[in-house]
């Protein structure tokens, strides 16, 4: 029977959950934090930062080409790329927020949610895997108190994830802590590494 009244509503809409699959170990976990921050958003691209972006724009014939650099500037300033920041970058570069989001979600290094103060990324691809990278991961998980991959430790200090090949295979196992690149990490020297990140 057809109806002439209002169309039926959408059933079963919900919040996107973490999709499963091989990427579950890579990149920051994409579960949304509960609720948004109640503080008003402070723009990133003001003053010196804006000047820095303007200087970069000269290098490219299009504004869009400055998108990845602009997103890096956001992450350097705020530690992650929030939806508000995506909207700001979109506005500054003449793009849509949806477009910026599509780019942000493509690249694993942009955090879409806040992470621990020290974001620990351990390479576990085959060249490091055969050199015991999994044991390095275990050591980090244990010694940071995180316990699980992708979960920030209770004190907010650490998040540990596995990443794909960091391009330092001869210096197994390479580890990045935020943007610090540390080579030749073994289970034995994990504690030394962590000493620098308190």
């Amino acid at each position, binding site marked *: 029977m057809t109806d002439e009244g209002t169309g039926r509503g959408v059933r079963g809409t919900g919040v996107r*959950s973490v999709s*499963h*699959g*091989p*990427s579950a*170990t*890579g*990149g920051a976990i994409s579960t949304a934090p509960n609720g948004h921050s109640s503080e008003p958003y402070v723009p990133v691209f003001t003053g010196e930062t804006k000047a820095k972006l303007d200087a970069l724009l000269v*290098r490219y*014939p*299009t*504004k*869009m*080409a*400055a*998108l*990845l*650099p602009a*997103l*890096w500037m956001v992450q350097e300033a705020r530690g992650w790329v929030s939806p508000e920041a995506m909207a700001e970058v979109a506005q500054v*570069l003449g793009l849509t927020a949806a477009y910026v989001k*599509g*780019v942000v979600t*493509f*690249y*694993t*290094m*942009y955090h879409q949610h806040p992470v621990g103060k020290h974001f620990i990324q351990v390479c*576990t*691809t*085959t*060249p490091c*895997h*055969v*050199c015991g990278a999994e044991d390095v991961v275990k050591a980090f998980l244990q010694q940071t108190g995180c316990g699980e991959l992708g979960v920030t430790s209770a004190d907010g200090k650490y998040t540990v994830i596995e*990443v*794909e*090949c*960091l*391009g*330092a*295979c*001869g*210096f*197994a196992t390479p580890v*990045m802590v935020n*943007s*610090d*690149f540390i080579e030749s990490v073994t289970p034995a020297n994990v504690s030394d590494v962590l000493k620098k990140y308190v």
Partner: protein
Amino acid sequence: MGFPFKPHPRENTVLSKHFGQAEARTLDGWKARGGYRALEQALGMDPLAIQGVVKESGLRGRGGAGFPTGLKWSFMKLGDGKPHYLCCNADESEPGTFKDREIMRWTPHALIEGCAIAAHAIGAETAYIYIRGEFTEPLAVMEQACAEALRAGIIGKNAMGSGKRVDVWVHKGAGAYICGEETALMNSLEGKRGNPRIKPPFPAAAGLFGMPTTINNVETLAAVPPILVNGGEWYKKMSRPDNPKSTGTKLWSVCGNVARPGNYEVEMGFPFKDFLYDLCGGPPPGRKFKAVIPGGSSVPIITIEEAEAALMDYEGMVAVGTMLGSAGCIVMDDAQSIPRQVARLARFYAHESCAQCTQCREGTAWTTKILERMVAGDGTTEDFDTLMSLADDMTGKTICVLSDSCAAPVVSGLQKFRGEFEALITKKSVHTVPAIVA
């Protein structure tokens, strides 16, 4: 050099002789080491003449494809009135490969010089060095070196006083292996998702921002200054007498279960057996070599027997059923489980798939799931056929070769180490209805 070890006498350290020398990073230090003579020479040459020298040298792309560099440069139509671009592919993400990072962090000016020469040879005024976001130190070193070179007038509006403009900019990636594919790199540079493009059109016709573009690997570009200074003939001589198609030196990134992992620079045609046991020190104590992936994870796995019979150049690797690729040499000893590593490689490709092509997007993930299930002890005999069938579906049917690269270790692993896979199967083919996981 077998950096971080001392150079082995059988190496020829054309590109790597200054690895480890902090001074080589500075402009003055580089000049003292003979740097920028090649650029000065090149800026006074006709672009076609530069192309001729590089063609004669037989230099081939060192990023993995091995395409003749001089020929690639010749595809750029000089004087067409369009802005030309040079992209340096410093996205080094092929598992097993870690040579470009060394070139950049120890001899940044070698790369800048190579970029500037290449730019001039293809009629480009702008060169972008696309460096993967994880390469913190190379990024910092390259930025500093570019700034230094700009301040000194080596690059910029009036490169070395030649009246020609050569701008070299560093561009930071953000975590995507696929951006090492030349067309994906261009899309990423343009501020898009790193999706490879359909070819044709080829970059030399329509590339970065739709303009004629050449993309070259770091190692390729770093080889250009010595070729220009020493001549194409010099480079050509470094080859097997019976194989003139592979010339010069290659940085081999050796990693995995080997006594002395590191970057070794040897001439084309070096015997692989000597290389593995002599230069690299052989397997770890108490272990034996089992398998080698010589060219980065995208090339077929070979057994140690096959490796010991191989010669280290493009054709030599093809002759033993694999490829030279990026020369990211992953060595596995007898303590490793081939199925586990093949599964881990499949997981890598599944993580990195850009999601455009159906076979890659779904096939890499499906392959990974089957392999991980097998490694976990839950495999069936039917999985062998499925894996081979998927590998066939994933080969030769997509925009780029990421899915082919996922298929390579699966096919070669199953072909050469079938026994290890079969040992994982404890039950016959059982058809169960899978759960839906929310």
